[in-house]
């Protein structure tokens, strides 16, 4: 009798989206990025406000993705909230695996979410995951080295300028490398960068009939340009460098330029970790004079798997973690430079945040990415640095390995593209396109 009443009461309360009097423990799977670690540290604030406890499952990105995908596809029910990206959200939303977030209360102000982010995390107009932080990519460069090379970085440079500057800045004897770019194989590593870059060179993954396009001249131009540049001005072993490796190189002062996620800006300007914190400036990712730039669009977002018993508390958590108040909370504790960026418009209107050196360029970068029209020529898919179909992750990791091997000098760009074309065609056929 009592339990029945309790259940009904809890259900009613959670429907009303007010804090439930019944303390629950929710399990959250998340990635071990700095912003999430910070969120973990602030969990007490959530518990104090709602009474719910949180159990964290913090995993490295690849392990996390494998873990949550297995769980969601088999309806395993291990997690009440999963940290997922812009790639998974629309696919999972379409399959009905996520709880739609269409009943968020007015004070959450869902319209405040940056339109690009909201679009990328929705399927068919319904939001399925709330962005915790969002990012695009941009150039981070060393002002001192740029000056030494006698050059001045424009706000929106071309690839030609970037390549010349990189070669001019390189001083291999002193371990200064003009440009650090991702080379480590992986669909979220080198392929994110190269796919976004290929957009600027006019290339695309598939034409309107889902035929792979790696045999196009545009892809050959992209890959050759990248490999030549990295050979001349990149660090040694670049084919093993992903985001983390490059971040560490840049913080040690070994890179002249680095084109990567906008969130890295707060790490490279943080004097605790970075030896070059006061010598960094930012510019938009380069283009080649066509209409697209080389920047991507990504968000780490919180979604609720359909079928969880704790939908109410899970929603409360999402409202807490992706709210304006949470941003204020982090700002109080860690300073404005460390708040999770790229999710809310109001953040960029906040005068405190506008003082942060990378705020403006981050917003411009995010706004210049369009996941719905990512390429010069028309494509049947959504996504700037990925293709939002279930097969993409598998295909792109393999293509990434071919490109990585080409960067390492184990094969030519042409051989890599030939293999990429063959394996993409093979996989697309297996999937029934």
């Amino acid at each position, binding site marked *: 009798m009592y339990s029945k009443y309790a259940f009904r009461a809890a259900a009613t309360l959670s429907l009303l989206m007010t804090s439930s009097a019944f303390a629950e423990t929710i399990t959250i799977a998340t990635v071990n990025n700095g912003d999430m670690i910070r969120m973990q540290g602030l969990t007490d604030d959530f518990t104090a406000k709602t009474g719910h406890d949180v159990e964290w499952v913090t995993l490295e990105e690849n392990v996390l993705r494998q873990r949550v995908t297995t769980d969601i596809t088999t309806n395993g029910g291990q997690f009440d909230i999963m940290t997922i990206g812009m790639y998974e959200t629309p696919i999972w939303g379409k399959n009905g695996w996520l709880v739609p977030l269409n009943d968020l209360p007015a004070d959450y102000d869902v319209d405040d979410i940056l339109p690009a982010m909201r679009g990328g995390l929705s399927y068919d107009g319904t939001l399925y995951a709330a962005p915790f932080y969002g990012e695009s990519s941009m150039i981070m460069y060393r002002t001192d080295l740029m000056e030494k090379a006698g050059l001045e970085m424009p706000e929106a440079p071309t690839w030609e300028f970037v390549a010349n500057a990189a070669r001019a800045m390189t001083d291999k004897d002193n371990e200064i490398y003009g440009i650090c770019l991702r080379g480590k194989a992986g669909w979220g590593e080198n392929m994110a960068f190269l796919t976004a870059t290929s957009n600027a060179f006019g290339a695309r993954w598939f034409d309107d009939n889902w035929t792979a396009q790696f045999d196009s001249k545009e892809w050959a131009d992209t890959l050759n340009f990248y490999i030549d540049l990295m050979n001349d001005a990149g660090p*040694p072993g670049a084919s093993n460098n992903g985001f983390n490796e490059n971040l560490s190189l840049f913080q040690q002062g070994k890179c002249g330029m680095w084109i990567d996620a906008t969130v890295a800006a707060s790490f490279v300007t943080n004097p605790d970790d970075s030896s070059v914190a006061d010598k960094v400036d930012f510019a938009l990712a380069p283009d080649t004079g066509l209409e697209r730039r080389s920047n991507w669009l990504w968000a780490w977002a919180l979604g609720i798997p359909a079928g969880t018993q704790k939908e109410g508390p899970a929603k409360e958590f999402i409202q807490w973690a992706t709210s304006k108040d949470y941003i204020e909370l982090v700002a109080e504790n860690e300073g404005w430079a460390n708040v999770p960026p790229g999710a809310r418009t109001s953040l960029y209107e906040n005068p405190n945040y506008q003082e942060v050196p990378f705020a403006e360029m981050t917003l411009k970068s995010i706004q210049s990415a369009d996941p719905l029209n990512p390429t010069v020529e028309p494509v049947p898919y959504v996504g700037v640095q990925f293709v939002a179909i*279930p097969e993409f992750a598998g295909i792109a990791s393999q293509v990434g390995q071919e490109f990585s091997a080409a960067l390492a000098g184990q094969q030519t760009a042409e051989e890599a593209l030939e293999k990429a074309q063959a394996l993409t065609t093979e996989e697309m056929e297996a999937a029934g396109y």
Partner: protein
Amino acid sequence: MATQHSRSAARIMMAPAVILLLGWMLVPLTMTVLFSFKKYLPLRGGDLGWVGFDNYIRFFSSSAFWPSVQVTLVIVGGVLAITVVFGVLLALLLDQPMWGQGIVRILVIAPFFVMPTVSALVWKNMFMDPVNGLFAHLWKFFGAEPLSWLSEASMQSIILIVSWQWLPFATLILLTAIQSLDSEQLEASEMDGASPLARFIYIILPHLGRAITVVVLIQTIFLLSIFAEIYVTTQGAFGTRTLTYLIFQRVLESQNVGLGSAGGVYAIILANIVAAFLMRIVGKNLDS
């Protein structure tokens, strides 16, 4: 010797283990075989019906298949060769009288206790990193260009990491075998004027034959399915994609369970070919 009574008792005593292993083998295996005949795509709604041998043909004819078999065999073979050769040498050395033998043995045995994930992480980041790794510092110290280990010498690097983990195991078994060698026989040959090399070839090595087969068998069982070392270091890039890793990519990255299951069946076949080959050698020893 065995009575009828003890025979039936023996059967009862074996039953739990046999039934459990049969279940452990049959249930997943049956499911794997079942899935391998289906179009099973978790991200596209799961089970999409029977497709006959499509998955088998596709997996087999994929350009990645034969290279992955080759990579698997090279890694297994390479690690076996290194651990056996260095294991024998190390066992001979440790068998000699010395000060602090116990401590040296502890030092040598240590890598065997380290989690494969941890050892791969440590080697990758702190030794093989081309900028901050110790090897890079060492290379620079001698005026050489630091090597990008995991891309330029990817297979060698992985074999090195795995060998480091398994060398203690080989050494221990071989050491026990050497210690059981009849020392009088050695002394007699020494008095006859046999050179150390001759003694090694004609007396020690034949004696170690059995131990070496055991090392080879046990290690092969584990090495055929190594995963963590590749997952952490190259993720299958630079020609290090083993059959196990290829299956992993099909199942978890491409989310094609049917295709991956067909690969799983191939892996079982490969394992059994290798096993049958080994068992033929070891089986003889089990008899004696």
